[in-house]
């Protein structure tokens, strides 16, 4: 996998914005940057771990039973992540556990296992998983930042849940209160996502048009 492939996985083929995969946890958990970071870290662990194992075992996985085998490996990593969160980041676990557990059904992870990891060597599978995880994390954290600022006028609130007590002072206050409290709720997640996707599509179109014009000249 080249750097261009990695960039492609992160931006042009971003699992959330371009392929619309993994939207359930994306919309549910992204009401703050800290929640988004927690889910991004959990998803990264699961996608990299499962891609690595599936790639390493690709010679052993029977073709007829490949999907159940992939789900078994992904479920194992999801459970391991859940147990680690419950043991070492209990406060964050209480907030995002329900959504970490449904990572197992995240079609972004199953999609990379089926389309890439099961056909490629371990090194390429890890890079692909890293690109996918970074792309998902960018989408998650970007949406989390926009919703937190709009909804409650802060950034990095409750950072101590993830980074320890020393991070309690990391909160950045942007105004007294959020200008759009709806952004913190599920309808707000849909609306914010729609606006971000419209902006990205428009940006993509204008870049494409500019490239086309340059080619003609």
């Amino acid at each position, binding site marked *: 996998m080249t750097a261009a492939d990695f960039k492609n996985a992160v931006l042009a083929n971003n699992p959330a914005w371009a392929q619309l995969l993994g939207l359930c946890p994306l919309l*549910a958990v992204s009401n703050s940057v800290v929640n988004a970071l927690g889910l991004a870290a959990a998803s990264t662990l699961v996608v990299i771990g499962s891609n690595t194992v599936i790639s390493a*075992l690709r010679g*052993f*996985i*029977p073709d*007829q*039973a490949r999907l*159940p*085998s992939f789900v*078994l*490996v992904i*479920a*194992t990593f999801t*459970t*391991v992540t859940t*147990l*680690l969160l*419950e*043991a*070492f980041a*209990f406060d964050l676990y*209480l907030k995002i*556990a*329900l*959504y970490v*557990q449904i990572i197992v059904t995240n079609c972004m992870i199953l999609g990379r296992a089926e389309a890439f990891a099961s056909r490629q060597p371990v090194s390429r599978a890890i890079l692909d998983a890293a690109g996918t995880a970074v792309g998902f994390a960018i989408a998650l954290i970007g949406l989390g930042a926009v919703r937190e600022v709009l909804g409650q006028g802060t950034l990095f609130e409750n950072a101590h849940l993830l980074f320890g007590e020393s991070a309690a002072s990391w909160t950045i206050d942007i105004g007294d209160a959020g200008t759009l409290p709806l952004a913190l709720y*599920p309808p707000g997640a849909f609306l914010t996502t729609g606006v971000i996707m419209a902006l990205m599509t428009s940006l993509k179109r204008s870049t494409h048009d500019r490239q086309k014009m340059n080619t003609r000249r």
Partner: protein
Amino acid sequence: MIRPVLNICLIGAVCGLVLSATQAMTRSHIDENRLRQAQALLIDMAGWDIQLDGEWRSASLNLCPDGYFVRGSQPGYTGPIEFVLLWEPARGLTLRVSNHRETPGIGDFIDHNRSDWITSMDGASLDRWAALDNVTGATVTTNAVRSALTEHGPVLMEQCR
């Protein structure tokens, strides 16, 4: 034909080993976290200062004459629903769910951090709990909280007399 089956068994065994190792590594931390959460919930539910022993680990706590407290679990839709239940002769029964995996938006009405429903039932009579029909269409979840009260409530209400 036998080889694919053996391969699947091998993959299952590897996954099982990883899970067992992780569980063994995290069990003591998880138990400690759950215990601390139950203690914090008890203090929050009671609203009065409770002197807990440093190593309080039992499933029940006799605080008579002020109250009596139990921890327990009921089968939910996606795994056990762990709860804490406080009986205070002066205020009645108070229930809080300390750990659950119910479906977000449907079964999580039992979580006091996500919904006001369970706090609205504070002090409700056993008859009211027993008559509880269905909340948000989550039959299994509703049955679990109703059973928690109907099984433990009568025993608790015999305490502190």
